[in-house]
């Protein structure tokens, strides 16, 4: 009846149609369902971080949907107004692209009918995606995007961020330099270099670093690079030539490993290196780098070494690890679990699924948060968590050791960084 060529195309078309129609979606059979959309970079240069953020939200939903008496976080006992409700997640992939993230936010709200959105890791994606949610009066819980500008949009009523910002971290970094100058013999930290990926995250961090350092430290090297670089030779060569006393780095994922390896190859180190966000604090990257990762410092919202300060994390982390093949939480992913748990607490307190009422409740209360360093979360206008905290750690022997502020420290810093040939 059909020629072979025609048959091929008919079979191909039918296969595509079947594939598009056959994949299972989340079940809506239950009446009491609260659909939450997630937007994370599940593919692209920071896919690993995105996958962990996705697993972190799933962890929170596992806790909320099941009775977990061993877990000491609010609502784990599954009693109260939310009893009988199930949270259902609809995951999407932003690919780290703002236009894709915005389109997915629209689809989640208009097609999937989600009640709220959690995301989007990349600051550049969180911006436009949260604008879509704001117009639709849907709550947007942002765990880990660090650009300070996101919570400087005072007109936003439905946007909430649990993590710290690069503005706060920059201030902490300059405090560390002042403390080292005061406490370490011959520290004499006067000059500063900044290396950052040329993205919204990196540029924002660099701007905040310059603001925090203004009048205190002389910036001798301002070194941007393109994320996903195949080599950083010229960037590290520039730093080596300027030889700043301290280095601030806003370097994500695999780029961070490349930066450290290139510094070793060129046999250069500053006296102290402080790093923003996920490159430094990624446990997988730290493990890959081995001893080379040691003596670098950075801001850390969570690492497994913090468990004595945050005992509730251990049980929660077991669920998380079961979803990530044994990889523990890092500072970013734990924020996504916190965001989901705080949102659920607000619904419970408001006893309503009216987004406006829940958003007002989020602002009006201080939320217990055993997974946060400060143990609590509260939002100020613009949606920033005023209790967001991070501790400055230093990698020593592959462990994140707490070094600053001194009242939280458990170890003295190795200063200056140990030269490559003496390790």
């Amino acid at each position, binding site marked *: 009846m059909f020629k072979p060529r*025609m048959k*091929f*195309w008919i079979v*191909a078309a039918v296969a*595509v149609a079947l*594939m*598009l129609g056959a*994949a299972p979606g989340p079940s809506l059979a239950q009446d009491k369902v609260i659909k939450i959309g*997630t937007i994370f970079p*599940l*593919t692209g240069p920071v*896919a690993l971080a*995105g*996958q962990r953020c*996705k697993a972190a939200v799933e962890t929170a939903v596992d806790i909320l949907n099941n009775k977990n008496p061993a877990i000491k976080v609010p609502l784990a006992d599954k009693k109260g107004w939310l009893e009988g409700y199930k949270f259902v997640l*609809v*995951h*999407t*992939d932003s690919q780290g*692209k*703002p*236009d*894709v993230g*915005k*389109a*997915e936010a*629209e*689809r989640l709200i*208009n*097609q999937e009918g989600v009640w709220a959105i959690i995301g989007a890791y990349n600051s*550049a994606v969180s*911006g*436009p995606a949260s*604008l879509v949610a704001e*117009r*639709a009066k849907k709550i947007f819980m942002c765990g880990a995007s660090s650009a300070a*500008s996101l919570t400087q949009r005072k*007109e936003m009523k439905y946007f909430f961020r649990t993590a710290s910002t690069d503005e706060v971290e920059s201030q902490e970094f300059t405090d560390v330099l002042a403390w080292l100058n005061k406490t370490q013999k011959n520290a004499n930290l006067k000059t500063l270099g900044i290396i950052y990926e*040329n*993205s*919204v995250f*990196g*540029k*924002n961090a660099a701007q905040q670093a310059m603001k925090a350092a203004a009048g205190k430290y002389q910036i001798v090297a301002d070194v*941007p690079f*393109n994320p996903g670089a195949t080599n950083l030779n010229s960037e590290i060569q520039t730093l080596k030539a300027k030889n700043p006393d301290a280095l601030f780095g806003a370097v994500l994922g695999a780029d961070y490993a490349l930066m450290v390896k290139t510094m070793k190859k060129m046999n250069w180190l500053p006296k102290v290196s402080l790093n923003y966000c996920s490159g430094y604090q990624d446990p997988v990257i730290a493990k890959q780098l081995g001893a080379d990762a040691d003596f670098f410092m950075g801001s850390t919202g969570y690492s497994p070494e913090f468990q004595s300060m945050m005992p509730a994390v251990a049980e929660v982390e077991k669920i998380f690890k079961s979803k990530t093949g044994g990889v523990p939480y890092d500072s970013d992913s734990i924020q996504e679990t916190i965001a989901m748990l705080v949102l659920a607490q607000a619904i419970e307190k408001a006893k309503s699924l009216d987004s406006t009422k829940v958003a007002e409740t989020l602002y009006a209360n201080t939320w217990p948060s055993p997974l946060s360093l400060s143990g609590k979360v509260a939002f100020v206008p613009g949606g920033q968590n005023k209790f967001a905290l991070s501790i400055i750690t230093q990698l020593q022997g592959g462990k994140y050791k707490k070094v600053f502020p001194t009242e939280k420290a458990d170890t003295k810093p190795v200063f200056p960084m140990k030269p490559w040939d003496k390790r």
Partner: protein
Amino acid sequence: MNKTFRRTDLLWLAFTGLIALAPLVPAIGSNSFLMHVLILVMLYACMSQAWNIIGGYGGQTSFGHAVFFGIGAYGAGMAVVTYGLPPWPGALAGIVSAAVVAVLISYPCFKLSGHYFAIATFAIVEIFNRMFLVWDWVGGALGLDYMIVEEGFANLVWYDSKTGYFYCALTLFALIFGIVRFLEGHRFGYYLRAVRAGQETAESLGVNSTAVKLSAMALSAALAALCGAFFVQYNLRVDPAMVMSLDMSMKFVLVTILGGAGTLAGPLVGAAVLVPLQEFTRAKWGGLGGGVDLIIFGLLIILIVVKQPAGITGIVRDIAKRRGRKAAAEKGGASLGTA
């Protein structure tokens, strides 16, 4: 009337009918995902048609169109974000700038031929990408984020409904496809195709190939910039990675090649296949992680390109030809039989 009704006439009739029905499409849901896909289909068809002028009809494979697209996007974006104006003057400035930049960079590049021209245009995207990343006046790596402005045609922004965007995309579509349709039958179009077929031969017949290629590039760049202005108004954000990237340049080329380069319908056919595939596979499988959607999307492109390198319009043409031959053979057989 001495012409008989042909199969291609039927295709054109269907095409015109679809265009005529297009204004009724918002009835399917002013803010639906389907509406988003339709808008993207028209936008990508327009972008590819703009590229088709120089890449398809002119035979000059440019991987640099993301630069012109980006200039248009930045023109509109800066008007709104930096200067607090409506996007229109910025879009106009972007269109003119893109045409000027196209002529300036194409003049030396056109001295190269074949693969070397394509490689040179690749490099230009990287140069502009780096330049815009560190240029503070255009927002640098931070890009430009739109604030909330009044909705409507004046600001070319709509938040709660996509109907306005749909009509804008439709207007853009009619304009760009109309221009290319006009060029097809115009002397300039013949010159362009003559240059593609053989530059030396065309020149020996009196065609100024440099002027023809530069004019085509300027027009192509200006139309790409117009698409860029629409893109930024639709996404309410612009940064170098979004618009001035090799990824974006590849979209111009891929859609056209997939549909059929050097044909009027090719860009529309390519966009009508590629965009829904991209959007629906992502919607269906993107959330699984691991790039399942991208793998399936890539496999389908490979499938089409392997089966028919001349694109989807090539497939249609093949089928039409085979049917024509079969009909002729039957007719011939019948004639022989009655002879």
